[in-house]
């Protein structure tokens, strides 16, 4: 069965963004080593799963870059833009006009665990989740992530948004791999323990 993979930037103190969504604490001096890690993570993916809050910004950001084939990010932007997206929202109806702005996307608005189950039951390659924080919090709450890739940035930010606070019970994980990269990021890869 296809996997749901989470790729998330985090500070050492476990925040995924500052209180107002700040991202200035992240390391962006990425070397070939971490670029390759992300490429390996993305290659077996044919679906991007996003929460409603992140969808608009994510799609328009990558769409903008695809307009300039000379941009160094163009090849990756092309993948991000072209890959079919599933947007989760409980509040939106399938006829909401905002959906027209979300290229290559479909909306799902049912019970989160049921929607993920159905998505995984369809044939296809892996599904990747990039956020936002609230949506990911709910996925973790219901243990719907099959593979965690936590990108631990070498900074302590003191306060901000987290993805773990909805979890009501302990969740034991199994370490798959810990990889340190030249930019100072360590990626911790876990599966839920069986």
């Amino acid at each position, binding site marked *: 069965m296809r996997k749901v993979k989470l790729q998330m930037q985090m500070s*050492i*103190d*476990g925040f995924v963004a500052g209180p107002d969504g700040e991202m200035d*604490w992240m390391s962006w001096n990425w070397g070939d080593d971490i670029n390759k890690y992300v490429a390996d993570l993305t290659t077996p993916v044919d679906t991007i799963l996003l929460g409603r809050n992140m969808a608009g910004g994510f799609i328009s950001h990558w769409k903008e870059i695809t307009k300039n084939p000379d941009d160094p990010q163009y090849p990756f932007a092309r993948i991000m833009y072209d890959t079919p997206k599933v947007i989760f929202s409980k509040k939106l109806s399938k006829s909401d006009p905002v959906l027209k702005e979300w290229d290559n996307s479909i909306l799902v608005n049912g019970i989160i665990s049921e929607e993920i189950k159905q998505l995984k039951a369809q044939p296809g390659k892996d599904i990747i989740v990039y956020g936002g924080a609230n949506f990911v919090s709910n996925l*973790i709450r219901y243990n719907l992530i099959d593979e965690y890739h*936590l990108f*631990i940035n*070498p*900074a*302590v*930010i*003191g*306060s901000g948004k*987290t993805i*773990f*606070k*909805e*979890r*009501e*019970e*302990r*969740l*034991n*994980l*199994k*370490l798959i*791999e*810990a*990889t*340190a990269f030249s930019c*100072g*990021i*360590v990626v*911790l890869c*876990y599966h839920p*323990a069986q």
Partner: protein
Amino acid sequence: MRKLILCMHVSVDGFVAGPNGEMDWIHVDDEIFDYAGYMTDDADTALYGRVTYQMMDNYWPTAADNPNASKHDIQHSTWYNSVEKVVFSKTLSESKLNNIRIISDDINDEIQKIKNRNGKNILMFGSATAAHSLMQYNLIDEYWLFVNPVLLGEGIPLFKNVNDKIALKLGEARAFASGVVGLNYKK
């Protein structure tokens, strides 16, 4: 100047204990103890909060005398008995205690003084509340975090009173066979 190094077990979601102080999720074994052995070799001072100190002091002074003492028990007990112990407390008094220095106030000044003295590193094991006091003044020079493969959901956070963002340098990351990952960060 010698360094103040904090050694801490944490969950993936950044807690050092559950909401009621639970620590049953912390995994230690010989591989990790051996690793910690390198750190004690480079340190001649231990720093504790009052609660952790009393827990430590109930066990380590005589841990080597136990007939079933492990190699690690003997090593750490010897180290514990030989180092100066600095304890944050408003209730303990220095006179009755052996090789102990009590800090009850002026944490920033007192720690700076100790750091400025000659000697090896100052090592801090556990002691979340004391660590939070140190963070307020950005006094921790190095972190050794042992990340246990669990999400606790709630509990006592490792980081608190962090007023400004702290950019750190990654020293090393090491995965242990148990699934614990040791992360070393420096100021």
